[in-house]
Every structure is written in C-alpha cells, then in structure tokens.
C-alpha cells in the first residue's frame, strides 16, 4: 500500500528537528533509516502529519571509544555497526539485523526508538547497561537502558524528543545467540550475555514486551571456568533458571512452550560463549 500524505521537513540540526517536532505536537515523527517507520506508514498503522528527516543533520554519524564506552551518533547505520571492531558484541548483534539492504539504511537510534521486542540492539543496550542522550524542547537528558524501554514498541521518549547519541560500555566478555526462522528474519528468541569485571548480565529478547534482564546470582566468572575450561553444569543451571523466569506469549512465530525451550538453549549458548572468552582475548580499549 501507499503511505498516507504528510509534510516533509529536512532538519538542518538537532535544535531544528526538536523545534519542528515540538510545533507538530503529537503529529510529528522522526524519519531516520525508514526501515521500520516506512512499513508502518505503508501499512497505514500510523499517519503522522509531519515527518522530520534527520538524515542530513550533521555530527550524528560519529563512532568513538572514550574510556570504556563506545559513543555512537544516532545515525550510525547497522552496516557500520557490523563492520566496526571496537565493540565486538555490537558487531555480532548487528550482523543479525535483516539483510544488507536493510542494514545499509537502518540506524542505531532508530532501532532503539522503535523498541521492537525481538530487535537485537535494545537487548545489547540493556546487557551493556548503556544509555542514550536525548535532546528535547529546552533540555537534554540521559536515559539509561532500564528506563528507556517501557513496553512493546514503547519508550520513555516524549513526542518532541530525539536520541542524539548512544553510549555503549564495552564488556570484558560477551556471548550472543539467536534463533530466527531464517537468518535475517526477526529473532524468535535471542540472548545476550556480558561480563563487566565479575558481574554477569544476561538479557533475553523476544519473550516479553521489553528486553528481559536476568542477573544470575553468584555470577562470579570463576564459577563458570575452572582453569580455562567451561563448567557445563553451571552454564546449564543459569540457562534453566532463565527459562523458568520468563513468561513468553504464544504468537504466529512460536508457542509459549517453544519460546521457553528456545530461551534455555540460546541462554546456554550465549553464556557458554561468554565463559569461553579467554580474558587475554579482551578487546584493547584505547584510553
């Protein structure tokens, strides 16, 4: 189907974008990569009066490590995420997003703002305990991953607010596993595991409206590895606990039982991969 009519505004800067959104009330929408918004318009699931195209806003495509954190401009495309080597977990997750033609347009902030419960990047943001910088009318603020996602396709962002930057701490170890019907399809269930120091975080996507955080108790890494070898029992224990802790719904893509079984397996794989990451293999992070 064809999109409903709208006014098009090509924003020249962040302030211009925010002011245009503000003037549009709840009738304005940001247009970034368009890989989620345009299908929504074509299927007539929304009919915003004004689209604010941020693709020409300067300064939103940078990618830079400062301290232990990767800072990404809102417009960094999925293809760039997949090609960079400063945040290997992010690169791996981005390779699972759609196909090359989708990754060449889709943006990091667009994926977070769209907040699809099966999307990879929201899970990565939560697993890394990252945050977004947000510009709004008259003020800027920083929103942590735990507060950003409030429901399926719902975020804490106001109508005139715009993500300008994504902050993604680089973990000391990580694991990623996803089950999709075909590579490039949205995940049925996915799991991201990270280790920062001796804290392990596991996030499951596709089992709730928002990414589901499991923090395994007793998550000291030496429980996972005994002289470099992965302790399978411990990994299985974490996977079982994770599967018990989710309440997935049934839909077209899988029943609740199927999703629970997948949860156990993707968590097992992600945590096994995390446990197998030798400490010496850590990505060097320039100061």
């Amino acid at each position, binding site marked *: 189907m064809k999109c409903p009519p709208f006014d098009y505004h090509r924003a020249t800067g962040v302030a211009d974008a925010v002011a245009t959104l503000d003037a549009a009330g709840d009738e304005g929408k940001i247009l970034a990569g368009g890989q989620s918004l345009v299908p929504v318009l*074509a299927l007539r699931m929304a009919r915003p009066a004004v689209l604010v195209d941020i693709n020409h806003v300067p300064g939103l495509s940078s990618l830079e490590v400062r301290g232990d954190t990767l800072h990404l401009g809102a417009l960094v495309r999925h293809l760039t995420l997949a090609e960079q080597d400063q945040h290997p977990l992010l690169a791996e997750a981005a390779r699972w997003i759609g*196909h090359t033609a989708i990754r060449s347009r889709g943006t990091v902030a667009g994926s977070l703002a769209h907040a699809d419960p099966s999307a990879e990047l929201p899970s990565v943001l939560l697993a890394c305990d990252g945050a977004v910088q947000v510009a709004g009318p008259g003020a800027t603020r920083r929103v942590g991953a735990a507060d950003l996602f409030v429901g399926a396709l719902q975020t804490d962002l106001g109508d005139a607010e715009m993500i300008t930057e994504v902050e993604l701490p680089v973990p000391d170890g990580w694991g990623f596993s996803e089950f999709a019907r075909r590579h490039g399809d949205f995940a049925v269930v996915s799991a991201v595991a990270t280790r920062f120091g001796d804290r392990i975080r596991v996030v499951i996507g596709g089992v709730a409206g928002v990414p589901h955080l499991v923090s395994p108790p007793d998550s000291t890494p030496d429980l996972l590895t005994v002289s470099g070898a992965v302790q399978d029992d411990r990994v299985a224990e974490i996977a079982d606990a994770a599967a018990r802790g989710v309440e997935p719904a049934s839909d077209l893509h899988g029943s609740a039982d199927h999703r629970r079984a997948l949860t156990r397996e993707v968590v097992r794989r992600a945590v096994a991969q995390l446990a197998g990451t030798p400490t010496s293999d850590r990505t060097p992070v320039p100061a």
Partner: protein
Amino acid sequence: MQISLTVNGERHRVDVEPRRTLADALREDLGLTGTHLGCEHGVCGACTIVVDGRPVRACLMFAVQADGASIATVEGLAADDGTLHPLQEAFSRCHGLQCGACTPGMLMTALHLLDTEPAPSRDRIRAEMAGNICRCTGYVGIVDAVESAAARQRELAPEA
C-alpha cells in the same frame, strides 16, 4: 517538491509529493519500470536498487530523500549495444528466473555482492540473496547464476 537525481549516469529533475517512494518515482515519474514492486514494505526485495554505492529497498525510501543521489537500477546493467551484463547472461543460462518478478532485485543485490566480494562462497551467496524472495525458481538456479557470473567476471577482469 523539486528534486534532482542521477539514474544510471543520467541526471533527472522531477517534482514529487513527499510520500512518493523512490520506487514509484523511478517507475511512474521516470518511466523506469525495471525496478519491480512486490510487498511495498521492505520484506520481498523485488525493489532493491543501489543508491550511492549501497543496496537499498526503493520502497522504503522516499524520493525526496534521494535528492542529489546517484542511483543504479537494472536498466543500467546491459551495455548500450544490448550486450547483457555477465549477471544477466548467467541468470538466463542457469534458469535463475522464471516469471521475472524478483529478478531486478536479485540482480542488483548480486551486483553489489560481486562488487564488494569478487569470489563469494556458495554459502555467502545464499546468505546475501536470502533477503530476496522468489516464488518460482527454488533458488538453486539463482545461486548457480551468481556463482557462475562471479567466475566469468574474474575471467574478464583478472586481478593485476
């Protein structure tokens, strides 16, 4: 809105409504109906073209966003004298098409793949072509065609 864009090396100026997709602008305003439309929401791949060197879904980009862009479509593949591009020739020879609805998107996706990876494995070809849906061929002929065209292109332009 007035926009200008370069398609297969030729500059065009068109006046489009903001909601006009790039696919519709190519087909309806410029008469370049080689770019096909299937789903019109990003999932089938029929409308895939190359914009500023990267493959994109022409149904998920508005024409106004392509202002100033350089675009390659299936019409630009064959030589001026009608000689088929190695990919087109291979699709024909390997039965990589039947009805042809998916073919322009398949060709443009494969074109970008071979531009960036001259010798992809069959697995890589399958992975890259998986974003394009074909109801007719069963895909084997398509993978054969891309593999065969890659070999032919390496013959034509051996690395120095």
